[in-house]
């Protein structure tokens, strides 16, 4: 049995666990059993993924007599698949471990337990299938199971709306992918990926393919302006499912984009990278800008997913530009950065969603304006959330910085590109990325500062208790990985090189430790370099020296007293800086243009008894400009077509007959 066959056994196993979940009762044993079993299977998938990544073998292929009778189901395991297996199953295992503690608080086991393993199975299946039919089937299963999970709390109206929006966007995305495969298959009509690969330099309209990828995979990943469903749907699900949707499912969409752009339609031209870079830059910037305006912790995290997807697609766009110009080192650095960021984002975003789940369970609040001071009540969760926040804000020596540094390094060689447009475009996109990274730090100062620091703003926050051991250990694993990848990025970068070889046809030379064992040197020993390990070491040395000299020379007496606050401390926690006030400067600088943010202050005159009021109004341009008119248009059309519901039998037969004639005419025309 080879790796692929072993891996394929996971899928019926997960479906079986899902089937058992149908019988679940509301006891801890059932929950722990189902989540534990799912976690074990994921762990197994993780091992297979790592094995597939390090194995130096040609892609494994397999055809099973499933699906359509004339084409069968094709499966394939190459390094790209193996890498994404690692991402998916790492996230799956961590979320399952978390759910063994957190999941017990879900009131309806039969709504969630059957769907959860099936969701993971569907995501794994998307990675290994190798023909269009099975791909779309698995993709649709992934959408539907996650849709079911969004609807777990379906009695809340906003969740139903979010789920409906998600379902329509998912349907739209799948339809685009369907068209895409139609374009790729052409008239020959062979829908296996192998046929697409052979035909890859053929007369397919590449720009159309790219457009459909951006619509199909981009709507699932959350590219602007198709991201609107994401911040509504991801937070609606239970937190461990949110972690999977944000941390993992968006990565499956990235996988689809990579597979189609670089593998199936390999004839990439430089012009294609222009829309990708522009959309990705806007997505990164806008995503974080939206996030800063949010006060709902889970929605804030979901908007950050949009930002990070933008960063990943920036790497992809750069890789496309470099590859089309045969500048392979740049292409390899860019694609490595995109892949590394994919892994990193899945780690810290899962970590942060799990942390927000712990907070949600402890306080019952998602609105950070009602939290505060949780660092005293939940110190361990606070620490892990802090690690995640620092990692997502791209702070060295954690992992988020490494991938963004690699993207910047790829940008630094962009002046070698021959096209003037690219020379001008890439620095501008780079500035957007720098802005996004800095705003992300601002956003997480706000998220962490308002949630965990300061004084509690509500009784629930004041009485929160630390979460359970399973949840904490899941977060501990993810936080440790964030730190480890930040310190030893070289190991992961070297592991990613087979994938880079597969996608852009070249890989970076393995790091031989010319300068130091863990120095990242994308352009050889004379080029730019970064060493997270030594920075960590230096910081340890520096802080030890500081601590020693403070202990040696300073007065060690520490007293507690009232806060100083310029002599006017206010005992009421309401006078603290809130999330809204924290984001006010940024709202004024950027929001007034982008969100049409307007502040309305109503200050009563002296002597009046009514209360003063302050209101901020913001409009979402993606929603107002695109989605709402589109929805109205569809509503208008459906009303026009409503008459079709009230026809006589003769008229219906006439419709069927005309359709048949039309098809016959088309056939006659084509053959």
């Amino acid at each position, binding site marked *: 049995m080879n790796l692929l066959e072993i891996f394929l056994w996971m899928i019926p196993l997960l479906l079986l666990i899902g089937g058992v979940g149908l019988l679940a009762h509301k006891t801890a044993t059932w929950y722990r059993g189902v989540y534990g079993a799912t976690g074990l299977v994921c762990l197994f998938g993780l091992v297979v993924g790592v094995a597939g990544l390090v194995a130096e073998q040609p892609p494994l292929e397999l055809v099973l007599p499933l699906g359509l009778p004339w084409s069968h189901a094709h499966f394939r395991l190459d390094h790209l698949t193996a890498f994404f297996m690692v991402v998916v199953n790492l996230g799956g295992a961590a979320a399952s471990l978390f759910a063994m503690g957190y999941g017990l608080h879900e009131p309806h086991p039969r709504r969630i337990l059957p769907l959860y393993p099936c969701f993971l199975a569907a995501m794994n299946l998307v990675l290994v299938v190798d023909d269009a039919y099975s791909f779309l089937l698995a993709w649709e299963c992934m959408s539907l199971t996650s849709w079911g999970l969004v609807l777990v709390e379906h009695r809340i109206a906003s969740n139903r709306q979010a789920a409906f929006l998600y379902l329509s966007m998912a349907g739209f995305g799948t339809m685009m992918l369907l068209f895409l495969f139609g374009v790729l298959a052409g008239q020959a009509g062979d829908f296996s990926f192998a046929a697409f690969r052979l035909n890859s330099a053929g007369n397919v309209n590449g720009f159309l393919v790219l457009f459909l990828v951006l619509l199909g995979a981009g709507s699932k990943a959350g590219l602007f302006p198709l991201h609107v469903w994401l911040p509504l749907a991801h937070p609606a699900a239970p937190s461990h499912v949110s972690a999977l949707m944000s941390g993992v499912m968006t990565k499956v969409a990235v996988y689809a984009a990579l597979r189609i752009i670089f593998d199936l339609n390999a004839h990439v031209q430089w012009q294609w990278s222009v829309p990708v870079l522009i959309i990705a830059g806007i997505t990164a910037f806008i995503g974080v800008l939206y996030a800063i305006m949010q006060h709902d912790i889970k929605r804030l995290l979901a908007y950050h997913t949009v930002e990070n997807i933008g960063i990943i697609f920036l790497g992809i766009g750069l890789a496309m530009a470099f590859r089309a110009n045969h500048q392979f080192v740049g292409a390899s650095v860019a694609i490595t950065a995109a892949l590394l960021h994919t892994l990193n984002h899945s780690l810290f975003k899962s970590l942060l969603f799990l942390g927000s789940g712990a907070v949600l369970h402890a306080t019952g609040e998602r609105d950070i304006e009602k939290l505060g001071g949780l*660092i005293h009540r939940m110190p361990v969760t606070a620490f892990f959330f802090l690690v995640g926040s620092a990692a997502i*804000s*791209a702070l060295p020596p954690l992992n988020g910085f490494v991938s963004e540094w690699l993207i910047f390094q790829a940008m*630094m060689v962009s002046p070698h590109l021959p096209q003037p447009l690219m020379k001008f475009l890439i620095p*501008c996109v780079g500035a957007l990325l720098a802005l996004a990274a800095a705003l992300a730090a601002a956003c997480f*100062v706000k998220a962490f500062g308002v949630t965990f620091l300061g004084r509690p703003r509500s009784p629930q926050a004041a009485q929160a208790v630390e979460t359970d051991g399973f949840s904490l250990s899941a977060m501990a694993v993810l936080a440790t990985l964030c730190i480890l990848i930040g310190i030893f990025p070289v190991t992961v970068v070297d592991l990613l090189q087979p994938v880079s070889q597969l996608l852009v046809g070249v890989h970076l030379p393995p790091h031989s430790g010319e300068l130091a064992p863990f120095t990242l040197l994308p352009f050889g020993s004379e080029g730019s370099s970064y060493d997270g390990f030594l920075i960590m070491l230096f910081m340890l040395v520096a802080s030890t020296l500081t601590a020693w000299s403070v202990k040696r020379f*300073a007065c060690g007496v520490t007293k507690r*007293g009232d806060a*100083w*606050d310029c002599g006017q401390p206010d005992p009421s926690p309401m006078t603290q800086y809130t999330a809204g006030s924290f984001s006010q400067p940024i709202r004024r600088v950027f929001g007034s243009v982008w969100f049409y943010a307007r502040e309305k202050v109503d200050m009563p005159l002296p002597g009046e008894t009514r209360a003063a009021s302050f209101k901020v109004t913001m409009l979402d341009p993606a929603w107002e400009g695109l989605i709402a008119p589109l929805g109205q248009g569809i509503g208008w059309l459906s009303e026009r077509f409503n008459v079709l519901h009230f026809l006589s039998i003769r008229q219906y037969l006439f419709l069927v007959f005309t359709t048949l004639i039309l098809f016959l005419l088309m056939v006659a025309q084509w053959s």
Partner: protein
Amino acid sequence: MELMHDLLLQGWQMVLVVLIAPWITGVVRKTKARMLRKQGPSVLQPYRDLRRLLSKETLLAENASWLFRVAPYLIVSATWVAATLVPTFATGLPFSWVADLLAIVAILATARFFLALAGMDVGTSFGGIGSSREMMIASLAEPAMLFIVFTMAILAGTTRLSTIASVMASGTMGIRVSIGLSLFAMLIVALAENARIPVDNPATHLELTMVHEAMVLEYTGRHLAMIEIAASIKLVLFLSLISCLFFPLGMAQREDGWLAMGIGLVAYLLKINALACLLAIGESVMAKMRVFRVAELLSIAMLFGVLAVFLLFLSRGM
């Protein structure tokens, strides 16, 4: 022996930046006082302030958390490491490759992140106002800084600071428009990052306009001493950065003998003292800006950065 020599050099730079940090702060204060026709405290006053702060007991707010107590150590060590990695008196120091220009900026961002969090820890309105504004200013300074990095990377072919300094020192660049523009952008970024006038006033208290001082309002005793020294080190870092990127005169090489190192050291000290005096003069003739004008000032820095990059394309030929 080689290794000892290397470690000694790097260690010396590590000690140097801390030793001169309060001096530079003192020079700025003294010059500013003289510009206002005041006598001003001695240049050594910041050293005395530090000693006094260290000898006082530390008073913590009732609800200060562990983060509040850990943050000063993190901030000092991050700033210190970043300053150690900027070439000062010599290029090509043994560990100069550990972090490039991008990474040094990011290490400073780490320090800022924890400083802003510490500002929010006690739950006062002043702390929050400081953190919020600091993060806004930083987020606007970052893209401008990226364009400067871009210009340097195009000129030198790498973002490694030592290499950039050597290339700039070699004089093959000539007087480039782009270098002038990025110098200007860099000056604005440095003013913003170090909370100097016109972005922030380091000497003010009890004003709604303060940014940096508002964040550290709750710190006392040894913690405050650490925050102060970190701010001084950061100032030295930016002055060193400006002098090594734009005025790399007299910098020694790693292989050079002690004499060249000595010359490099003297040149370095002269340069940053001169820059500190210029900073003080600049601060004396400018007025503090309203907070929301700062966004426009930093957009000017960004603009100069963009122009620098684009004109570089023009002059180098596409």
